[in-house]
């Protein structure tokens, strides 16, 4: 296997508060290789966006990386500060956020935003950058790119804006793209367009993608591997087909079963009792133990084993035969 583009080892993000230290990300490890799409799923508050923000150095204080390492193309980046991190952001890591309107500058023509990004990170002339800006817009499927470079963000529809954001994320030819809920604000037909575009561009360029979303369907269709997060911890990591069709962690199993798609033809949907614990009240032992139907004594005391490689963070992982 090729050397990973991004390698996260035992990453822990802490937020000190008056009531103690919260851990929105707790001991998470994973790798992404070039050309691979790693899906990160979980419910709100599971820490999926926090992990992405830690990688790109956008944690807002007082949140900070307390433990662990982040390696990007063989160089350690978690301790970089200010200017050094700014050089990597945009150049090595591109970012696509959920809301395409707030991630573009409303006062700058989109061509100027692309040119500015390229001039900051690439050793090219202004004229060359302008030429590349048009090419980049053509590549993401914006009709009449040569004219549209002079348009402002508000002149585009939501789907077109997200295409511009993708062009912007890719224009400095980064080796890693972090896409944080890139299609959540879009309609289903536009979502299909954007996901197809993201998949094609990243495969062609060998870009690694961290795809953060709560939509299992999007993950199933786009991701190669998937990491399931629960209460800041990795619950399960593995190839997407295995995790979705034969989950080994009881939480993943419950999550998959509770999507209306999985309960086709059944009168009632599968339910996981309760809700995810708040970060200031994560239970001892395995974080899922109060809601787990298979809980045993050990789960209440010992935190689950860490999910690394292809594993579930569970003391008693489900065997496939147990699943209906």
């Amino acid at each position, binding site marked *: 296997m090729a050397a990973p583009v991004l390698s996260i080892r035992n990453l822990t993000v802490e937020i000190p508060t008056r009531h103690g230290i919260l851990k929105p990300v707790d001991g998470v490890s994973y790798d992404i290789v070039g050309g691979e799409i790693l899906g990160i799923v979980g*419910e*709100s508050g599971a820490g999926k966006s926090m992990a992405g923000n830690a990688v790109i150095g956008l944690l807002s204080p007082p949140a900070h990386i307390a433990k662990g390492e982040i390696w990007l193309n063989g160089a350690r980046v978690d301790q970089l500060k200010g200017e050094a991190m700014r050089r990597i952001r945009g150049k090595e890591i591109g970012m696509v956020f959920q809301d395409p309107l707030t991630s573009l500058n409303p006062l700058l023509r989109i061509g100027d935003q692309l040119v500015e990004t390229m001039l900051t990170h690439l050793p090219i002339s202004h004229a060359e950058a302008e030429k590349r800006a048009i090419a980049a817009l053509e590549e993401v499927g914006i009709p009449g790119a040569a004219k549209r470079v002079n348009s402002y963000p508000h002149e585009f*529809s939501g*789907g*077109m804006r997200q295409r511009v954001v993708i062009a912007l994320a890719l224009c400095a030819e980064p080796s890693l793209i972090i896409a944080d809920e890139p299609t959540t604000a879009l*309609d*289903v*037909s*536009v*979502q*299909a*367009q954007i*996901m*197809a575009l993201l998949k094609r561009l990243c495969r062609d360029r060998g870009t690694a993608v961290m795809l953060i979303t*709560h*939509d*299992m*369907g*999007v993950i*199933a*269709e786009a991701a190669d591997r998937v990491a399931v997060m629960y209460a800041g911890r990795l619950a399960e990591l593995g190839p*997407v*087909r295995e995790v*979705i*069709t034969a989950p080994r962690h009881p939480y993943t199993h*419950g*999550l*998959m079963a*509770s*999507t*209306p*798609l*999985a*309960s*086709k033809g059944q*009168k*009632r*949907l*599968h*339910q*996981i009792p309760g*809700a995810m614990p708040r970060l200031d009240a994560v239970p001892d032992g395995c974080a899922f133990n109060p809601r787990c139907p298979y809980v045993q004594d050990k789960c209440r005391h010992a935190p689950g084993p860490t999910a690394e490689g292809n594993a579930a963070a569970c003391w008693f992982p489900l065997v496939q035969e147990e699943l209906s």
Partner: protein
Amino acid sequence: MALVSVKNLSRVFDVSKPWLNRVLEREPKAFLTAVSEVDFEVEPQTTYALVGESGSGKSTIGRMLVGLLKPSGGNVDIDGVDLANETDAAKIDAIRSDIQMIFQDPYASLNPRWRVRDIIAEPVAARGGKTDGLAEKLLEQVGLSVKDAGKFPHEFSGGQRQRICIARALASEPRLIVCDEPTSALDVSVQSQVLNLMSDLKDNFGLTYVLITHDLTVVQHMADRIGVLYLGRLVEEGAPEDLFDAPKHPYTQMLLDAAPRMDGFGREATPPEGEIPDPINPPSGCAFHPRCPLAAEVCHKERPVMRRLGNTRVACHMAEE
């Protein structure tokens, strides 16, 4: 007899610029047709789902059903009473307590300064009814605890708040509840809890739901009948098994193909082309023709009328059995 009967319903919004700008820039008034000539009926104790992408007019229809908006044309009859045109005050009053609504955002639809007890009892208190113990009873029915009545909305999670909204909607013992994206703001595992609760309540109280959503998986699970909307027009209507297994309108087909699937590992479907057109200047003839793979000459010129094909109704010149 149908509980809700919608006939030829239209709604036009005036989106013109201010008067002075129009005079100076010599621009005519601009009108946005959010809903255009929609017909459907909802049978008692069933779930009728309205699906469509943003701008398809589904929420506007919902607001007209409960009387928050007046129709520009056509009418909405609920149990034989047309709220917008009825003149008998007693009749209007009687039918209003039969209709309730649940909104998408459970954070915005509960007054943060009111205790849960007062929020839930308000629909009854506002009409001078007896509210003793009402909130407590309803809280238990939606799976919360009696003690929660004294708390404020900020003490609850999103799923719990949506349960409070449901309890409030049940307070006046309605027959019809219009649910506008009731689970869109919720996580998958919480969504399944709320959907199960809604099904249980429907069976226990004999409720009728009009479910407005963009999520096809929710629709497939919940609905007895589905209406698909595109640019304010009803394009296809049918039972879930007919619609999902054999969609007849090309837009329904496109929508189903585009929806991500849990078993679609590495699916490389060609995504649909184009986006929803500008509703201020909708395309001539069939609104879907610029994106339609089957579009013919007639589709550019004539707006298709709803016609019956097997068990579904479809508005398409090209659709066949």
